[in-house]
């Protein structure tokens, strides 16, 4: 359908305002929020993800597409909640203690939001306690941790330990990422998953939910 196609193209082409406009137009025409999400927005971000994987899209372009998706989702969100449609999943994400580098994590957050996740962004330099607190309060499906520095990455196992001590480890999946992080490291500290970049973080989150 032409309107869904236009909306898809708007997201792919990073046109934030147009994406909002077309989403509203679709609602005015009587489309269901869930249908707009699944038949247009999600497909758009899937294509953007593929283009990124192939090296056709660059990080800033991917982010702007995610921003367009997020803006459209904000229009749909109240209606989705009203009709009891489940979001893809909830994720609490932050950069670990001592690490001011939250660029990568913000990137992942935006991509996850773009993919339809409910993202609680805990920001840079998040201590273990804050992760635990957020799990208690927000009951996310996933806890995401990021580190850009080799030295601060060593705080990741502390968060996992803190979750265990609080008896919450079984309730959430833990995924980690960041420049120095590897699959081996994820295995070693007992994380449930590792993603090397923002696009694969979305795939990983989908598989963990």
């Amino acid at each position, binding site marked *: 359908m032409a309107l869904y196609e236009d909306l898809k193209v708007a997201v792919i082409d990073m046109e934030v305002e147009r994406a909002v406009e077309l989403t509203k137009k679709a609602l005015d025409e009587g489309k269901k929020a869930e249908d707009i999400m699944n038949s247009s927005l999600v497909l758009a971000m899937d294509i953007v993800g593929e283009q990124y994987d192939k*090296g056709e899209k*660059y*990080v*800033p372009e991917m982010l702007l597409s995610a921003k367009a998706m997020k803006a459209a989702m904000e229009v749909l969100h109240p209606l989705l909640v009203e009709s009891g449609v489940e979001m893809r999943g909830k994720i609490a994400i932050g950069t670990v203690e*001592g690490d*001011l*580098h939250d*660029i*990568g994590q913000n*990137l992942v957050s935006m991509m996850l939001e773009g993919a339809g996740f409910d993202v609680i962004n805990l920001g840079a330099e998040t201590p273990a306690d804050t992760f635990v607190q957020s799990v208690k309060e927000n009951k996310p499906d996933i806890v995401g941790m990021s580190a850009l520095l*080799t*030295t601060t*990455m*060593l705080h990741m196992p502390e968060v996992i330990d803190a979750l265990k001590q609080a008896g919450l480890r079984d309730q959430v999946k833990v995924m980690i990422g960041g*420049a*120095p992080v*590897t699959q*081996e490291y994820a295995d070693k500290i007992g994380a449930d998953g590792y993603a090397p*970049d*923002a696009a694969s973080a979305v795939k990983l989150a989908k598989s963990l939910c």
Partner: protein
Amino acid sequence: MSKSKLELLDHNFVERIIDEAFVILEKTGVLVENEEGARLLRGAGMRALRADTKGTVFSITRDLVEQSLNTTPSSVKLYDRQGSDKPVLTMGKERDKVYFDPASTALYVFDYATKEVREPKTDDLVNFVKLADALSNIDAQSTAMIPNDVPKDIVDRYRLFLVLRNSSKPVVTGTFTLDGFDAMNDMLVAVRGSEEALKEKPLAIFDVCPSPPLKWSNLTCHDLIECAKLGIPAEFISMPMTGASAPVTLAGAIVQHTAETFSGIVIGQLAKPGAPLIYGGSPTAFDMRKGTPPMGAIETMMIDCAYIQIGKHLGLPTQAYMGLSDAKLPDSQAGLESGIGAVLAALGGADLVAGPGMLTFESCQSLEKLVIDNEICGMAKRLIEGINPRTDPLAEDLLHGDIYQGDHFLTSPTTMKWFKEEFFQPGSVIDRDNKDVWLEKGATTAEERAHQEVEKILASHKPLPLPEKIDRELVRIMKREANRCGMEQLP
């Protein structure tokens, strides 16, 4: 004398960058999370633009930056562990050559035997340090890896402990923890005998890294102030990432680097006028396709060369993280990126270049790469020695020699006098055998020859031992630190 140099910016461009850095420090300001740093800036009459739980954003005036630049020493010297009279490194104004130290703080080591990237243990760092001790073109050590067999709370000082025990070369280091600095200073003082002697003959440089954009974390600001007070050289490592944590353009990132480094110079000089500081950095041209910070990108190296030029223009000692590679193992990519980086650093005028050994965005060290890079460093050093008029006339043998009697210059007195000094002699990594000899010797690759060299050096090289008394004191300090976090026995 040598005319080998590279300047990517013309004079007006340098001035324009510096002027804009002044404006940014005044208008945008810098966030200081450390209380003492904030107190120093307030004491100097700097205005707080805003404050929150994280810290205070200060506007820093051009006058204060200029005043601070004036009191910063124009040279820094580093001495060997024995405290010999002749410095090992003379950086800045009296610079006579380019120096290299391994890039530092790798979380991984490339294990050549298993072709595996894994976390290093104590033995890996010890072997690495011994190797760097033996390699003639590596002038200083660095605390190059993070061994995983001691608790992370003490691993910063443990690395320095291992380096001091296994090499007599000076060392570039840094902390991960707030109490790391005191313990590490204790070790350096133990080697020199007193704080005064350490100040007189510095043995170590501490890296202090502002967080981009324009922030000084509590830890790094603390280290900067402590270094300044004790006269230990501190090296600024401003790390703008184009388009990620800094403006996307090269010029914009250079301005950010300048502003961050200026703010560090101000804090250092407020803590102690005359404190030795080094104009260093580790910028990266953020890869917009992969979302990674490549050290081997040509634009990364261009930003490096530009800030080195600015540091030299200001008359300060300079440092750069160049000669690294983003390859995952010592392969062709590693060779080409490291080669280009080291040569540009040398031509650009960096005094100290941290790069050798490092792979994968500054996260993985390789002993084999260190051996290969040692050759690159030797070539870079030779390059900036330049082409010199060794004889007068320049082509002596063509004028006075008996060229029509024999057909070569191989045994002429001029050849005998200059054939060694004029040329850099590479080690066994560089293959210049004729093809048949190469085949006979096993038709090896550079990586294979590098590995053979690693094995040979580790089997034969004996670093100069520490005097027993000092060694005992270092062990005592390290055990004290280990016990404090519940570790009974050192690995």
